[in-house]
């Protein structure tokens, strides 16, 4: 299935957000996930199923403030 993740089109076998994070080797605790502009609660990762063409944003904290 094809997904847009952080602006990149990727091919994945993951069916849920949690599986996607595991496939991408990302620890769920430290990130936030948005699917099609909707921010998910961490508790939703396990059950939230992905569909062909979903647009997903995975963000975390980085050093910075203002516009750097």
């Amino acid at each position, binding site marked *: 299935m094809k997904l847009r993740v952080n602006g990149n089109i990727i091919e994945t076998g993951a069916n849920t957000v949690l599986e996607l994070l595991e496939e991408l080797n990302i620890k769920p605790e430290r990130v936030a996930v948005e699917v099609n502009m909707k921010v998910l609660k961490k508790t939703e990762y396990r059950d939230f199923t992905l569909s062909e063409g979903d647009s997903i944003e995975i963000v975390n904290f980085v*050093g910075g403030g203002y516009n750097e």
Partner: protein
Amino acid sequence: MNDRLIISGIEFNSRLWVGTGKYRDFEETRKAIEASGTDVVTVAVRRVNILNRESENLLDYINPKKYKILPNTAGCYTVDDALRYARLAREAGISDMIKLEVIADEKTLFPDTEGLVKATKILVKEGFIVFPYTNDDPIVAKKLEDAGAAAVMPLGAPIGSGLGIRNPYNIKIILETVKIPVIVDAGVGTASDATIAMELGCDAVLINTGIAGARDPVAMAEAMKHAVIAGRLAFKAGRIPKKLYATASSPIEGMI
């Protein structure tokens, strides 16, 4: 003297808050933050690099158990963007605290105060503890207080300018006007700027460029630690009046 800063029931050990931008590397960031003695660290929210997972993460260096992580909405130029980043930040983190920035202009990085008040109202309704980065207009500060902000964070001078508290008079009026804590954000370029902010009666100071951009960020971080303590103590100690000379009968007005 117990002089703890408490905001929305959260107790802060330090009146110096620090940013994490513009450091050479994570190690320098860690050392500077440690030297500053702070327990509040602001961070930005950005996309995970999914193509290269090797890269280290800031939180490997800044232990969230040791420091209060205050996410910001840096780089947001609209209310919607700011709301989106604030909501993501809450999920990525563990607290409801958000340093709200609605930037109006990328040259000066001044806030869009109208959008700021709007976004504050919405986020407060959603249960956020909102720390809005604002200008030094006392009227806007009052609107933010009425909107439910936990504190106001007026700029002393433009972000990264190092000009200090350009208009102490406005800051003083803000302190007269609002009951919530006043935290000077942006403009502090050297230690005395932070001391002056605290002497005015501000509750805390947030510094990023002033420390990270110094020739020796770790030394400047330690300087800022002492500067904030000095200013707070001086404010509470009650300074002597200004006179043209000691034997002058009356205090002078602001002659220049």
